[in-house]
């Protein structure tokens, strides 16, 4: 483990590398030198032996010629001065030993003939040279040398090399150690700086510029890298902060958006709970903003929203938070209030800020708001509950007539819960067969003839019993279930109406209410056409009744749609006429064939002269626009008489017939006159 850490460290590796290099270099050098030296020594010895042999041979020529063995021995004796030569043998021309020299008596390598020389071991070296005088061969000479001095020299050289090797290893080790210190010390300092930057996020750390050129360059590069990192880090943080801010700001008004509002609300609720203080929440929805947007364009709408935001912002305290949470919805978090009354004061102040008209692009625009108020007083509710309560209170304010404030109370809570219950029950109501249709007759006031039945949706819940339309229709509209319910009612009614035609001698029309939500769907016209096709009801026998709210959208779009409905062949009636506040001016351009005057006008008809005047003028208006007038809610014979006098064309009401699940009974009457349930009504009918 320890060894592994040493060999893995740079220091260990440098030292090991230096030592290994020195060892290998020395070994190779020594071996090469020894081999080369030995080879060279042998070559030198060989050359020396050849020279000696040739000289001795030359000096022996006369002795050979004159067969003077003694002289030859004398000549060979000269070899004594050559310590390496241990044997010299002179052979005559026939190869017979003629003279010899032996350095010591114990060595005897002179064989008797030149053809039969002794075999020598590795410690000896020999040469055999011919002795010639000019071209004439006189004999041969054989010299043997001892290699001992070569071997001794070799040994000495190895010893010296070993000593030098040890010295070199020591020097290499020391210099390697110094080298590795010079390299690794600055590297360790770099490592330390890197560690600080990486783990401590300390971008102030800088490496010291020291050491060799390369190390100093590395340190400089390292510092540049840290600076770059620091720069990028700060850029990233700025970008994050910017994103964080963007993600929590409404781009149009610059106010906090829903996200920031939700976060802040949770914090405010938590704080209030901890400090046992009250806090309030205001939910503000502009009244009629959609109308402004649709009629004057989105740019004006946006401009208006900014102005509204500015006015609201001018009324909230520094500690409060105004946010825009939806298209025309604003919220205010009221921190540290004493109770609901403080919240009410704040809401009134905000409402009051909107009371004066806005000047936008040279126009004067008035807009109100419905404000729901909820307060947190250390109850068990949380931020979500608080928001729901404010939302419910805001809807209550809308229902109560708009441009007002409304505190949340337990009744509202019950209503909200009931709406939720109804919504969940309504989802399966059609499938369970709980939705059914009643038909209320409408008569021609002149001819007293039945002209049509109005189809009315009914809901009989298995457990809850009969639920009136006034309760479930708004729920259906808010939840979008109205499409399903409306389509079901229309299909059922159309089937029923087809049956009527077989029973009645006269054509009997069917009137079906279509809510604004249904009408505004893209497939509205196609859906109605499909139902007519499926049921086989002739289009002219269907009257579609629409309220004024269908014209809250863009008039061109509504007009186009109404035109297409007319082209189908159906007739159109404007329902609940007089209750809305939309302009009558464009009614003439729309293809309505009838106006249905709301029951509220009929109610006081007999008692109030103003009501009579109002109804008269409405009827007059309709006539001017060449529309028929149908009056709802006729409950008294006097009302019937008055209306007939005023010129109303058709009538509907309990006096003339209640909604009924089995309308075919009325078809049996040959005269088709209204059938009253009481004597009074019969009298009235007979007028």
């Amino acid at each position: 483990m320890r060894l592994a850490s040493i060999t893995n460290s740079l220091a260990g590796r440098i030292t090991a590398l230096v030592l290994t290099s020195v060892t290998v270099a020395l070994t190779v050098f020594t071996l090469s030198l020894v081999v080369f030296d030995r080879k060279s020594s042998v070559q030198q010895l060989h050359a020396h032996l050849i020279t000696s042999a040739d000289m001795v041979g030359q000096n022996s020529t006369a002795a050979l010629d004159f067969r003077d063995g003694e002289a030859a021995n004398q000549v060979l004796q000269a070899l004594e001065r050559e310590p390496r030569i241990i044997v010299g043998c002179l052979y005559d021309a026939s190869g017979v030993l003629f003279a010899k020299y032996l350095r010591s008596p114990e060595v005897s390598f002179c064989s008797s003939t030149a053809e039969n020389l002794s075999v020598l071991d590795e410690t000896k070296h020999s040469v055999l040279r011919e002795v010639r005088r000019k071209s004439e061969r006189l004999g041969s000479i054989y010299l043997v040398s001892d290699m001992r001095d070569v071997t001794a020299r070799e040994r000495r050289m190895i010893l010296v090399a070993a000593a030098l090797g040890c010295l070199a290893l020591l020097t290499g080790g020391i210099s390697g150690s110094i080298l590795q210190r010079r390299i690794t010390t600055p590297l360790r300092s770099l490592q330390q700086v890197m560690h600080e930057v990486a783990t401590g996020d300390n971008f102030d750390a800088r490496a010291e510029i020291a050491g060799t050129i390369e190390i100093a360059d590395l340190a400089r590069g390292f510092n540049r890298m840290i600076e770059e990192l620091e720069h990028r880090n700060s850029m990233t943080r700025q970008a994050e902060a910017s994103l964080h801010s963007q993600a929590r700001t409404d781009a149009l008004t610059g106010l906090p958006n829903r996200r920031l509002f939700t976060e802040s609300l949770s914090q405010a609720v938590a704080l209030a709970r901890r400090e046992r203080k009250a806090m309030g929440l205001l939910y503000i929805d502009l009244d009629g903003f959609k109308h402004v947007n649709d009629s004057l364009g989105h740019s004006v709408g946006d401009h208006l929203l900014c102005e509204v935001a500015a006015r609201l912002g001018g009324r909230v305290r520094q500690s409060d938070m105004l946010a825009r949470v939806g298209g025309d919805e604003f919220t205010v978090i009221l921190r540290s209030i004493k109770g609901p009354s403080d919240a009410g004061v704040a809401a009134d102040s905000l409402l009051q800020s909107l009371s004066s008209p806005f000047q936008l692009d040279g126009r004067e625009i008035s807009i109100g708001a419905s404000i729901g108020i909820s307060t947190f007083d250390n109850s068990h509710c949380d931020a979500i509950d608080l928001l729901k309560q404010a939302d419910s209170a805001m809807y209550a304010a809308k229902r109560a007539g708009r441009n007002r404030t409304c505190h949340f109370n337990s009744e509202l809570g019950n209503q909200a819960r009931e709406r939720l219950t109804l919504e969940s029950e309504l989802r399966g109501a059609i499938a369970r067969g709980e939705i059914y249709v009643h038909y209320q007759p409408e008569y021609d006031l002149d001819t007293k003839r039945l002209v049509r039945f109005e189809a009315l949706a009914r809901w009989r819940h298995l457990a809850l019993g009969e639920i009136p339309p006034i309760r479930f229709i708004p729920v259906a509209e808010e939840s979008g279930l109205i499409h399903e319910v409306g389509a079901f009612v229309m299909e059922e009614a159309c089937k029923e109406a087809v049956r009527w035609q077989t029973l009645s001698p006269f054509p009997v029309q069917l009137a079906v209410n279509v809510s604004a939500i249904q009408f505004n769907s893209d497939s509205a016209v196609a859906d109605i056409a499909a139902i007519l096709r499926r049921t086989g009801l002739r289009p002219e026998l269907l009257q579609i009744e629409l309220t004024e709210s269908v014209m809250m959208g863009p008039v061109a779009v509504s007009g186009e749609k109404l035109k297409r409905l007319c082209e189908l062949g159906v007739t159109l009636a404007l329902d609940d006429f007089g209750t809305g506040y939309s302009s009558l001016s464009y009614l003439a351009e729309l293809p309505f064939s009838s106006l249905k005057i709301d029951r509220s006008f009929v109610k006081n008809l007999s008692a109030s002269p103003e009501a009579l005047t109002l109804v008269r003028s409405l009827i007059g208006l309709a006539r001017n626009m060449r529309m028929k007038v149908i009056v709802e809610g006729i409950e008294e014979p006097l009302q019937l008489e008055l209306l007939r006098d005023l010129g109303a064309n058709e009538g509907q009401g309990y006096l003339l017939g209640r909604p009924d699940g089995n309308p075919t009974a009325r078809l049996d009457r040959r005269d088709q006159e209204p059938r009253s349930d009481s004597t009074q009504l019969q009298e009235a009918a007979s007028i």
Partner: protein
Amino acid sequence: MVRSISSSPAVRKTTRAVLPGLIVVLFAFTISVPRALAQNDVGAVRRAYVYNLTKYVSWPQSKHTLLIGVVGDTGTGVAMKAMLDGKSSDGRIIHVVLNPPDSGLSACDLVYVASTETSASSHIFALVNVLPILTVGEDSRFLTHGGMVGLVRSADRIEIEVNLKSVRTAGLKMSSRLLDLATVVSNKETLK
């Protein structure tokens, strides 16, 4: 090295060649010498010595032939001619002439004086003394009379004696290797 050997104490007074060994030498020279009496063997050794002497002596003029004149005993001359005539010595062809006339002597390169003719040697020396002619005799007195090389019999061997001064005077050069084997006779000795 050469110098150390050449200046080695190899200058000796006598050379002792064993006669049977000479026979072998003669065989080595591809000279067929029939085994005969001891006297004949001595003659053969002397003839071989003459032949070898030609190899260790340099004449001032290089020629293709080497003319040997044998004066005195005719038997010796015949044997010499039989053995050496036509042979090559260092690239020169040997011609042996028996008892040449005085005029012919000066043309010789080597004059061999047979021992029986010692009385005539003075006359011969008078003719050839200043010429580059190597004179070879068979006894010690030959050198005292002005001869250059004596192949002197001593017991069972032949010794070479050299009068170096005569050799030099005649303008001849003798190899040191030969001198190592020979007995050099000084002028004083010569005078004695």
